[in-house]
């Protein structure tokens, strides 16, 4: 099985994610030699319904962004539902950089996207209709 994909959100248009956390995580990604996707702003990517989110959501993925609940529904709103059993969201708003980096770099994935009453695939199907 291939290693999980990595998605990093820079949350470029506001200062809600501590700059030192964002920079430390990005620096580690750049230094480590791993392949990764970095979006300037996941909210913007979702609002544009960027097709790349569908490709990111397909298969195992680790996402360094913000709250898992927000990330789950940002993907669904873009018509790209996350597989909650194969997605791990690291919250750069609340977790220290070292913790986020450690989770991104280890090969195992710890799914933590909240499950709920709603099937996110069903919601994503309604997008744009």
């Amino acid at each position: 099985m291939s290693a999980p994909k990595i998605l990093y959100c820079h949350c470029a248009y506001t200062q809600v994610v501590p700059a030192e956390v964002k920079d430390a995580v990005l620096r580690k990604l750049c230094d480590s030699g791993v392949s990764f996707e970095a979006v300037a702003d996941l909210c913007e990517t979702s609002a544009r319904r960027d097709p790349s989110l569908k490709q990111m959501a397909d298969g195992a993925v680790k996402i360094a962004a913000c709250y898992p609940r927000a990330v789950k529904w940002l993907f669904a709103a873009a018509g790209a539902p996350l597989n909650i059993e194969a997605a791990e969201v690291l919250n750069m708003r609340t977790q220290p950089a070292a913790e986020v980096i450690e989770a991104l770099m280890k090969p195992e994935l710890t799914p933590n996207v909240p499950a709920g009453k709603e099937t996110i695939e069903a919601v994503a199907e309604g997008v744009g209709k």
Partner: protein
Amino acid sequence: MSIRDEKTLRIVLYEGAGAEPVPAESRFAAVQALLVNGYSVTRTTGERPVNAHARNDVLALGNFGGRAPASGPATDGEAQVQVEDLADWAPETVLGKVRSAGASKQAIEPGAWKPWFPVIDYDRCTNCMQCLSFCLFGVYGVDTANKIQVQNNDNCKTNCPACSRVCPEAAIMFPKYKAGPINGDVVSSADLQREKMKIDISSLLGGDVYSMLRDRSERARSRFSKERDSDKALKERQKCLVKLAESGDIPAEVLMSLPSPEEIARRAEEAKAKAAAALQQNAAAS
């Protein structure tokens, strides 16, 4: 044109076969500069195809030592890929290349729109349509199954979380908001109680925010015409705005930019009618 139809430029930092690795410090500086300026970046060593789609052209940058390949890295989409050989990785050089490629491909200049809009947590949403009924700016609509959805993200007023305040289930998030649960943090029972109290406060203020605004505005206008005291009228308006801003967390600039009372009334009626129609159809279907 909707933001959903705009063409963006995706940057690929290619360090796979045929390219020399970029020095780590230069890589970080270049990627950071691109992100800060609103560009999305894929850093790849070529082990898996690059995400690509016809709507997003790709600019692949690599240190090819003067031997840039005619075609870029493998992609899993239909994007046009332009390859650039880069020896100088200074952020301003990289940004210059990217901006010039973006202009030639007619991609949007990033950063023109601040992405602030509601995100619905459908695990919590009960499809009550209060948000649709409340929003004056046409952000919400319903899908073909009469399910509430965010349809016009770019109509939303930056930094205004007012619709999340009217949601009885705390189901509306603004991920860039400062505090939970609106920012996406877990919803606690205390949060739910607080959300309910906010709605009560709003009703105490006079039924709904818009009727309060209308009343205040009419009273202010009447006072203005009687007293011809523009300072007093302005003070009254400011007092009202401050009160609304405090109670609903609505930025003053959003309230200041609201249309005329007549237009507010028209839009509110229109939104309420849309919500009522969707609810009626849902009731008939169940």
